Every structure is written in C-alpha cells, then in structure tokens.
C-alpha cells in the first residue's frame, strides 16, 4: 500500500516532539523509575531519602511474607478485599445490574428509553469526585439524606460509613459504573435485528427465554469486553478513598488506596513502588487477555 504524507518527515517529528517529551518525562520515565525504586529502600525522610540502598527483592518478599500476608492492613488482605470489591461492585453490581436494566429497556416505549439513556449518560459523565461527595452527603450520620429518610419512615438512623464501610464503597462503585455497562449492553441489544425477538414472541418465548436463548448469546462478545474493562477500572479505582479514606481500620483499603498509604503516608517509597509494580503486572494480565479476546473477535468477524 502506498503511504501518503501531508508533512515531511522532519516536520512530523517536530510536531510530535512536545507530546513525546511530556509523555516521556511524566509517564515512561516514572514507569521505569518505579521499577527501579521498588528494588531500593528509598523513603521520604532520613538517610535513605538521599542515599537509598539497593535491597534486591526485599520489598517484594515483605509483600508476600506468609506470616503477615492476611493481616488486616497488609498487602494480601488488601488484595483479597480488592477481589471482593471487584466481584461485588463490578461483576455483580455494574455488569449484572447494567444487563438487567439494558434488557428491561428493550421493551419500554422509545420515549422512556431515550430519557433513561440521557439520565444514565448524565450519571456517567459526572466527575467521580462529585459523585463521591454526593454519596458522602447521602450517607452522612448527622445530616445525611439517607438518615433523614430513615427517620421520616420511623427507622433508627445508622452510621453507614462506619458500620458498613465495605458495602458503602461497593454501592458507590456500582452506582458510579452501572450506566456504562447498561449503555454498552443496550446498544449491543439494539444491534440485534428486531425480527429475531419477534419470531421468538410468535413462537411463544417468555422474556427470560428470549434473553437466555437469543439476547445473551448474541451479545456474548460485548459482555466479555465489558467485564474486562470494568474489572480493570474497578481494580484501579481510587475514589472510594474520598468516602472512607480506606478505613475504618483498613476495612475499605483496596489496593490503590493501600499503595497510596504505603508510599505517601508511611513514606516507604520502596515498598510502595513494589506494590505498584505488582498491581501493574496484574493489570498487564487483564490487558493482554483483553487484547487476545479482541483479536479473536476481529478474526471471527473477518472469517
């Protein structure tokens, strides 16, 4: 194939240079810097701040130390918490709820469908910080909306963020991300020819049978894409920090928050960098799996 160029090679490079420099300085260099730091005992204060020692894999060993691995506030406990968080808020919450909503949208009048889509996009484009603050205001003990509703209905108020911190961040992340899955599944369902469902209607299928036999199998690829994406996002989400700061007593300290605490509160840069590298490797696995699935789908379409 002949390649056409609007600019000479030199001009192209000149245009790319500023962005390249910035990305190099703020993304690529720190990436390798973090890997390097994870093999040292660099900290913010003290002698090791200016003259860190090379400690080999010590930071990694301390993360995977069997004696403290499952202790609350340690890496293993945080990893397990993160997996629970991802399963509940992303897979069950966002994906399953999004699927339910998307399926229900298929049989409502067009006008209601448009309204729902608009509202869902509205929720989706709100900044996370705003959503976090809204939830904070909703769940607050003294002046929170939820407690006002509870009291108006004659129920005792609850200190939700203190009593159910984990469920609070699960609900928060579900609320925050369901719109994405719903929109994705909704557009996937809309791409199925309506006659498929009409033929099933005439044949006598119930809504559940249509979903199980026709709807779901035909959007399987979208489901896989959605699951990988929201799993990655939920795995890396930091916003729950705004609700609970990882507490109380590390009960909502998912991995991004754990990393933040080790590096920027305990100022143990070396160990923090090691956590960062491990999280990055986990993300790499997700990303490779995602790419593999996408390639397989692209090939499937071509065949």
């Amino acid at each position: 194939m002949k390649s056409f160029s609007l600019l000479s090679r030199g001009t192209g490079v000149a245009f790319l240079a500023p962005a390249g420099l910035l990305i190099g300085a703020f993304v690529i260099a720190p990436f390798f810097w973090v890997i390097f730091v994870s093999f040292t005992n660099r900290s913010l204060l003290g002698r090791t701040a200016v003259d860190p020692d090379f400690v080999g894999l010590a930071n990694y060993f301390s993360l995977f130390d069997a004696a403290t691995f499952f202790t609350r506030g340690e890496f293993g406990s945080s990893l397990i918490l993160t997996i629970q968080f991802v399963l509940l808020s992303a897979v069950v919450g966002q994906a399953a709820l999004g699927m339910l909503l998307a399926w229900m949208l298929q049989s409502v009048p067009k006008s209601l469908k448009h309204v729902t889509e608009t509202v869902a996009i509205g929720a989706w484009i709100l900044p996370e910080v705003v959503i976090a603050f809204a939830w904070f205001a909703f769940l607050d003990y003294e002046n929170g909306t939820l407690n006002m509703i509870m009291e108006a209905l004659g129920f005792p108020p609850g200190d939700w963020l203190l009593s159910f911190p984990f469920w609070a961040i699960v609900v928060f992340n579900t609320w925050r991300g369901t719109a994405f899955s719903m929109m994705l599944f909704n557009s996937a369902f809309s791409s199925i020819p309506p006659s498929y469902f009409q033929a099933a209607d005439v044949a006598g299928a119930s809504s559940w049978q249509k979903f199980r036999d026709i709807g779901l199998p035909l959007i399987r690829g979208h489901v896989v894409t959605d699951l990988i994406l929201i799993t990655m996002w939920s795995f890396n989400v930091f916003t729950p920090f705004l609700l609970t700061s990882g507490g109380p007593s590390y009960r909502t300290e998912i991995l991004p928050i754990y990393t933040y605490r080790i590096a920027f509160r305990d100022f143990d840069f070396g160990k923090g960098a090691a956590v960062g590298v491990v999280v990055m490797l986990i993300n790499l696995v997700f990303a490779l799996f995602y790419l593999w699935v996408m390639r397989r789908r692209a090939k499937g379409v071509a065949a």
Partner: protein
Amino acid sequence: MASIRFKGITKKFGEFVAVSDLDLEMHDGEFVCLLGPSGCGKTTTLRMIAGLETPTAGQLLIGDRDVTFLHPKDRKISMVFQDYALYPHMNLADNIAYPLKVRGEAEAKRHARAREVADVLKIGHLMERMPSQISGGQQQRTSLARALVYPSEVYLFDEPLSNLDAKLRLEARGFLNHLQRDMGMTAVYVTHDQAEAMALATRVAVMDAGKVVQYAPPMEVYRRPATTFVANFVGSPPMNLLPVEAMIADGALHLKADRVSVAPLPVSRAVAAALKGNGKLTLGVRPEHLSIARGGEANAITGQLFANENMGPEKLVTLERDDAARFTARIFTDDVIALDATVTLGFSSEHIHLFDQAGARLPMDGEPV
C-alpha cells in the same frame, strides 16, 4: 385452523394512518394475499394479526377469540419473516425446534419433530449446519420449517420470497402452493408482487393507502378490477388506461379520443348513472387482449412505435401517443413482427373495461358488482 375477522380496525403511527377502518374476513382454510405497493398498510395489517402491532381502534378476532390485545404467544399463530429471522448462533435443528423448546419439549423429541418437518421441506440433511452455511432458498425453507413445526391456527407470511433471486422465488412459490394444497392452512400472505398473489391466493385483498380497494379471488381481480388502481397494479404488464370523451346517443355509448376508434357500446345502467349525458371516462384494455391491427377491427388505437421487446413466448409491442400515454400489447407469436414507425393495435369490444372519473369500475349489465 381458524377464521380471522377485522372489525373496524384502524392503526395510526403518530399522525400517519397506516390502516384505516378495516373490515375484512378471512375464512378457515383460506390463503389470503394482502397485495399493494410499499406503504399501503399490508405489513401493518399482518403484524396486527401476529400481535406485533396493537390496533389504535377496532376489534380483531381469530376464530371466536378476541385477540385484539393478546400477546403474540397466546394467539396460536406462526409467522415467516421477510429476513427469515434465523438465529445465527443455532444450527438448523435448534432453529427449527426453537418453538418446541420454549414449550418445554425434551431435546430428543423436539429434534425428531424438527427433522420430520425438515425432511418434508427437503432440508433434513442440513440439520447440523449453521444458517450462514446454507443458501438463501434453504434459509427460507428453514424459516418455513420453524413456522410449521408446531400446530397453529393461522400462518402468517411477511414477503417471505422477496429476498430470493427470480429463479428460486418461482421454485419456492410453487412449493408454497403445493404445501397449501396439502395442508389447507389458513394463511395470510403479504406481498407487493402481483404474480405471487395471483399464483398463491384463494382471495386477494388489494390495498392502497391503508384501505382495501378490492377483496376477491385472483381471477376476479384480474378480470374485473374494481378501480383503475387495481387495474394498474395487477397484471404484467398492467392494464392500458386511456382517458376518453364519452357520449350517449341513439341508445349507444360513443367513446372518442385522438387516433382511437371504438365501436358504439351498449349503455349499461352503471354507465348511464355515471355519465348523465356527456362526460369523461377511462378506457382500459389488457395488453394480452391487443393485437396488431390488420384492418377491419371493431376498435383500434394508433401511435408511434416506442418499443418492440422479444420476451420468448411473447412479444411486447409498445406504442406512444402524442399525449405521452403508452399502450402495450402482448402478442403471442413465434413470427418476427416487422413494424412501421406508426402502429395500430386492435381489440374486441368484449375486452373493454370502463372506469368513471374517480377511477371506479363501471360494470357491464349482468356482470356481478
């Protein structure tokens, strides 16, 4: 099997009236074709029988049951879709057996039944294939098999042959006709192809702008079209229509137009009522009733030769007149016809159709109205 009755059915989409105050009865065992141009309301009518559209007003009965607002699955109907609506992720066996699956039939039993139907439709050997791996004609028969696999009171067809190429369409049409003879099913069949309607239907409902303009057996529609619209829609090529000046004198009807000679016709009651002295009428003659004039014909029309098409068994000779109106004759001959630049076509009086200015047929006396 059951009858279908429309009682004052209207369907609007917003302001657009798709079907307007429709009264129609289809008998048990009848094969009714809804025929008309696109946008005439025929598909909407069919989809209301299926329950895929709900009427804005009126009542719909299948047998003695009022099904106006019933869900499709409760109507005891089968339907074949224009795009076949085969599920791309299921093989033919699962596709055909799907209606039985939703009814809770065991897999072995429903596959056996699917195979039975597939064998009748000559696709039994393809049961393991996916829909994308079979031809269009086979896909069409698969979707037919899925409609036939369970007992229904009414079978609905939404332009099932329109996605097939011409040769396969003829073959499938013949097959459907055979199936209808075999099963005696009550069927409603939507098509814009008048030949399909003529070939398959026991009665044709010709629709235009949301209304049925004629509802009669195919030969009746062909021989005595109720309006100029029907005359122009049924037949291939359609009926030739020509505006003429009409006058009743000496107890006979005289028709006049430029370069047209028509022998005086008897004055029927309908013509007398429509005309009341002088006026304009529309004269219609089917192409197959025209021939090259040899002189001495009772009726003749003259014009410039426009086209002379050889169709194999017949020839289509078209002449163009000064008013740009064209007249086509179907001439069945094996001879090569040599034609001058000016051609005269002749026709006998018994083949003349008359329509009033509004386009309604003016029957001859003694002809059923």
